[in-house]
């Protein structure tokens, strides 16, 4: 315990569109210790999803360095990076998390079948039981409810025993009760298995379950602390969501 699973050093990400560039992320540095649950918050367009994508090796930063499970992902070839993701990382997105025409079991085994870590049949059943989907392995995912589909995604992310799970608004499309169950599953994985979770959310109640809270504004990390109570989270989020003071379009040097 205690090593850093994710490290960002002065990471910037610039998007080009129609000749005009926008810095979605500006010189963000960050270290995430193994076995912690980190929540990332900020207003729409603050760069929180970009931060997650860069940290997870889904997108390549324009400048800076990203270390994922000890490896510099900014220098890896695409195929090597893909293998690193499939061996050490799990993902839960807000939507489009599952292949609707396949069964629950096929979805959970997806990463493994793509060449990732071997998963025994017993482990699939155990994981499905843990997420409350015992006995549904042969059902078509498209026939399940949104909350159940999201739990299939959590099972898929956890079954390969990854070092870190990245979750992008995992409860964004769910009602509070169903969403609460999904968050509790991630929390359990941190507490029992020592998994690291990095979760983007805009819901203070969802963020409350984390150990550490990061706030982003205009692509900069503006706050980094132990997770406070819901009211304080909401107040901080409101503070960083207000109109930016000073020039917000400066380019990092």
């Amino acid at each position, binding site marked *: 315990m205690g090593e850093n699973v994710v490290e960002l050093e002065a990471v910037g990400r610039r998007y080009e569109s129609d000749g005009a560039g926008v810095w979605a992320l500006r010189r963000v540095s960050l270290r995430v210790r193994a076995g912690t649950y980190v929540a990332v918050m900020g207003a729409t367009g603050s760069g929180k999803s970009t931060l997650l994508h860069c940290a997870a090796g*889904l997108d390549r930063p324009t400048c800076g360095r990203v270390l994922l499970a000890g490896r510099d992902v900014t220098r890896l070839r695409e*195929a090597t990076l893909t293998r690193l993701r499939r061996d050490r990382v799990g993902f839960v997105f807000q939507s*489009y998390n599952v*292949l609707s025409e396949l069964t629950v079991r096929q979805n959970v085994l997806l990463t493994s079948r793509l060449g990732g870590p071997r998963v025994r049949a017993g482990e699939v059943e155990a994981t499905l039981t843990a997420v409350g989907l015992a006995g549904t392995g042969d059902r078509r995912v498209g026939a399940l409810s949104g909350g159940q589909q999201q739990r299939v995604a959590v099972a898929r992310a956890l079954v390969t025993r990854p070092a870190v799970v990245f979750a992008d608004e995992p409860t964004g499309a769910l009602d509070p009760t169903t969403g609460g169950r999904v968050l509790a599953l991630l929390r359990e994985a941190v507490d029992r298995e020592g998994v690291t979770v990095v979760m983007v959310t805009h819901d203070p109640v969802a963020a409350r379950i984390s150990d550490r809270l990061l706030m982003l504004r205009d692509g900069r990390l503006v706050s980094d602390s132990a997770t406070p109570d819901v009211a304080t989270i909401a107040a901080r989020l409101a503070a960083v969501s207000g109109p930016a003071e000073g020039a917000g379009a400066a380019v990092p040097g």
Partner: protein
Amino acid sequence: MTTGLTRQALIRHRWAFLGPFATQCLAATVVTAMLTTARSLSGATLSPGQRRALDVADVPDAAAVFAGNAIYLSVLMVGVTMTAAIAHQARDIALLRAVGATPGQIRRSVARQAGVIAMPAAVLGYGIGLCAGWAWLTALVHQGLVPAVVRYAPAPVVLPVAAGIAVATSVVGALVAAVRPARVPPATAMSESATLRPAGGRTRTAVGLLLFAGGAVLSAAVSTFAADQADDAALFVILAMCVGAGLLGPVLLSAVTRLARPLLRLVGDPGLLAADGLVARSRRMSPALVPLVLAGAFAGVKVVSHTTAEHVTGVRDPAADLWLDYSGTAVFAAFALVGALNTLLTVSLDRERELALLRLAGATRAGVLAIWTWEAVLVLCTVLTVAAGVALATLVPLTRTALHTWTPYLPASWLATGVLAGGVVVATGTVLPAALLMRRPAIESARTSP
């Protein structure tokens, strides 16, 4: 190792595979018709004189050329139609890339999808091909190109050949189509599938311009060639310029739309809405340009070279020769038609929600159809302009070498027929599906379509 993307794609997006299926079916039809005809010719008991007459009329050669054309056109068109089919799977591909699929695994899955649908397409195409082969041979006899003693012999051995060709061409076309979608970073794929990409792309535009320029230089060089060499080189001029037009597609569509804007202002809001929409959608529409321009330019070159020759020399080609030449053009045009209609229909069907929103925002059915009609007019204008440009660039050196004239000749009625045919194709791919989609209540479309 099967991961399920193939299965997911073939079930979830089954309608998206109609384009590749139709292309493969058409290829198998042409290959079957030509191979069975060639076998019937070689298997017939003919006198040496009849055999020589057959060779002089180029019938066996023509059959081989048509089959060859069908093979390379099907690679091209499977590529175009699979691109549209893959676009539907952007979300699934992004998810798989995120959870650990390498670009190679995605490409193999796409190739497998094309291969799987190629089999039934080939079988169906073989069946249609037997009928087409019989009809073609009968027509050849009727035109006096083949002696009446030749009997059509359907050969079962052609089925595995046609199936093999269909699978091979599909896999090649699909692999090419999958290169870009398989390579994009998954995060980009996730966001890209939600938003429209703007026109252009510097590399794409540069390569497009280079191909256009290359075609023009070659065309200038052709005017100094001997007549028979010039004919062969002309095909490369057409191909280079058509692929160039495809790469420049978004830029060309935007350019024509911007030029037409002052005129559209006279029409009022429907015209302007159509112009804005087309500029935003130029990249998605542009795959329809390649086949339409290819068909227009190719048919134009074929027809105009005959009409110009007749106009200048006053001598008409023998009807049988013309007929053989135009059969080849028809094969070409049929492929182009499948490719163009597929792209147009795919784009149109994806816009069901947009149609519904326009109506919920207060537009009448007639109002929405007016917008779509103006869009279709703009697409047609772009196609006609580019096709005419490519055809002229190819033709002028040819007529210069063979007939010593700089001005190709086409009767107005032929030109009108060509424009009308283009208009029918574009309208069938755009205005017709819009009219059909709007028969559903708007609120239902808005709720159910993605």
